[in-house]
């Protein structure tokens, strides 16, 4: 049950069942918020106001499209590439900015938003998402989980063990692979010999599907199907969203030494937010004023966010000893 053909909605001008203007605009708002977060963060980084930052420009369709298919009870397990996805669940921009500022105010309570902590090591959160989903199922609850990871993550043992557990336990989980075709400087061709990453689903006996990761509605549709299946007891789904990394891996990276610049430029022209805007305009759902309003709202959220973050006092060094344990050992402060 592997769909190898890459699914699209926007290019085919398909209409999605049950998706009204409100949904289309909600998704748009999410994309704009993420785009604004990303673009502002890059500026803040250059200004020395936040630290190293993992850019997710042109990944917004994958994040917003899939997140829109989830219910609030469903858990999100982001990698560093989805650092700001919690914004779509109400995490304040200041919190995520704090994370990139190395400030403890950047650590939230996952249970408040059903958004797990940002996972820095590659792929190791996949089993977490699987365990959460399996655990909810064991408790008779209906929540699902989604884990986001990159193409490179599929090479890690942690991904493999998690995916296998997901299938064996029929955990209601979506394994969402952002295939931006690069793992820092390593192209997908040096990462795997599989024809598509969706092929990996076969080995786990779970459905696999490939979507155009620049098409927010295709992503939404595929995730919605996976969520429906999961909620009905149909177990996990592997989604490969095909896109392209049109920005550096992170602020510390200089891709010019390894990337094909022409290809990057081409991708930039077809970047996901512009594509969706053109589609919404064609549908008549988006006009100049609305677009300006939504973008202004997002810009304002970020302005307020960085202001709030910078208003936060520097953390107390005593926090070094906080939260290591619920019941700390008596000699923990020895050093």
């Amino acid at each position, binding site marked *: 049950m592997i769909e190898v053909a890459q699914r699209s909605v926007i290019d085919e001008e398909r209409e999605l069942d049950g998706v009204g203007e409100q949904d289309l605009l909600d998704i748009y708002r999410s994309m704009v918020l993420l785009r604004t977060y990303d673009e502002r963060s890059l500026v803040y980084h250059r200004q020395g106001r936040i630290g190293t930052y993992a850019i997710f420009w042109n990944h917004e369709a994958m994040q917003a499209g899939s997140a829109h298919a989830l219910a609030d009870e469903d858990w999100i397990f982001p990698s560093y590439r989805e650092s700001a996805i919690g914004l779509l669940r109400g995490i304040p921009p200041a919190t995520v900015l704090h994370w990139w500022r190395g400030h403890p105010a950047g650590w939230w309570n996952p249970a408040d938003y059903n958004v797990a*902590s940002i996972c820095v090591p590659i792929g190791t959160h996949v089993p*977490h998402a699987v365990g*959460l989903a399996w655990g909810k199922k064991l408790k008779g609850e209906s929540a699902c989980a989604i884990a986001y990871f990159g193409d490179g993550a599929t090479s890690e*043992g942690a991904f493999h063990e998690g995916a296998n*557990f997901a299938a064996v336990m029929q955990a209601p989980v979506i394994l969402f692979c952002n295939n931006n075709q690069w793992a820092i400087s390593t192209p997908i061709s040096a990462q795997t010999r599989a024809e598509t990453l969706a092929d990996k689903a076969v080995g786990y006996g779970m459905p696999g599907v490939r979507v155009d990761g620049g098409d927010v509605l295709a992503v939404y549709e595929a995730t919605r199907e996976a969520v429906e299946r999961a909620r009905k007891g149909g177990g996990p789904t592997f989604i490969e969203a095909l896109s392209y990394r049109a920005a550096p891996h992170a602020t510390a990276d200089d891709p010019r030494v390894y990337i094909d610049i022409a290809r990057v430029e081409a991708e930039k022209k077809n970047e996901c937010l512009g594509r969706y805007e053109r589609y919404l305009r064609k549908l008549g759902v988006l006009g100049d004023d609305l677009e300006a309003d939504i973008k202004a709202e997002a810009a304002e959220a970020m302005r307020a966010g960085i202001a709030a973050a910078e208003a936060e006092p520097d953390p107390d060094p005593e926090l070094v000893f906080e*939260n290591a344990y619920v019941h700390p*050992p008596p000699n923990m402060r020895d050093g």
Partner: protein
Amino acid sequence: MAEKLLVEAVNDALHVELARDDSVMVMGEDVGRAGGVFRATAGLVERFGENRCVDTPLAEAGILGTAVGLCMAGWKPVCEMQYDAFSYPCLDQLITHVGRYHWRTGGKMEFPITVRMPYGGGVRAPELHDDSPETYYVHTPGIKVAIPSTPADAKGLLAAAIRDPDPVVVFEPKLIYRTERGEVPEGDYVVPLGKARIAREGTDVTLVAYGAMVPVCERAADELADDVSCEIVDIRSLRPLDEESLLASASKTGRVVIVQEAPRTVGFGAEIAAILAEKAILDLRGPVLRVTGYDVPYPYWKIEDAYMPSVERVAAAVERVARF
């Protein structure tokens, strides 16, 4: 109170804790249908069902990794690693996540994971069934570690581990799974983490040990009883560590021998010695000696006795420090 073998006491603790708290679940390779390769989990799947005693795929990182997620869903997973050396694939999850996730949530979520495993040598087994990996675990911030040496402690410390809101790793000395027999309280029974056990009082030399090395120390103390009065401190909780009991004994005897089965370099004995060198320096009346495994691959079993700290080696160290 009933007499039980050490491994039976482990099994008893699991039965009691699963009955007591229905968010406790056991998971691991062969823990269900087979009841565990040492039968430590016998009877659990029959009594508590397949959802509370889960035979997992053969994947230790998967076991510990999904346990993190299970905690987020409200479970208290007790993960079995089938053997010491087969726990190594789980170290990545342990170090990067299990020890840090409570901290990462700003102290808001708890990860009451218990990892338990049979460990240690002397069992005449093929390679990689003999390791003493406690250093890898106890060096990891966010993790607690307990190692019982008696049936009662095996039950009580495991119960404490399961009830503790922090992740706790319990190493069960497999060499004495079926040789140590003792009284074990029925039903609810907890031995708090962080308290050493004075296995024997004495006045001349302090022997510090845990797990299967405690009976070795006892035999050495017996042999020397006419000449040297040994006090034996069974550490039993490596983190939190009961420094007080350790320092009290060192101050009483002034002479300390530490016995550890693991390879010497940065074994837990080094930590004990370092604490003494810092906090008991004025009490020490001789060198702090360590009797340990060697910094070599654990040997083929025909000669493993030459690797394991023996009664003779322990006795020789005691005599050396006693005469110092």
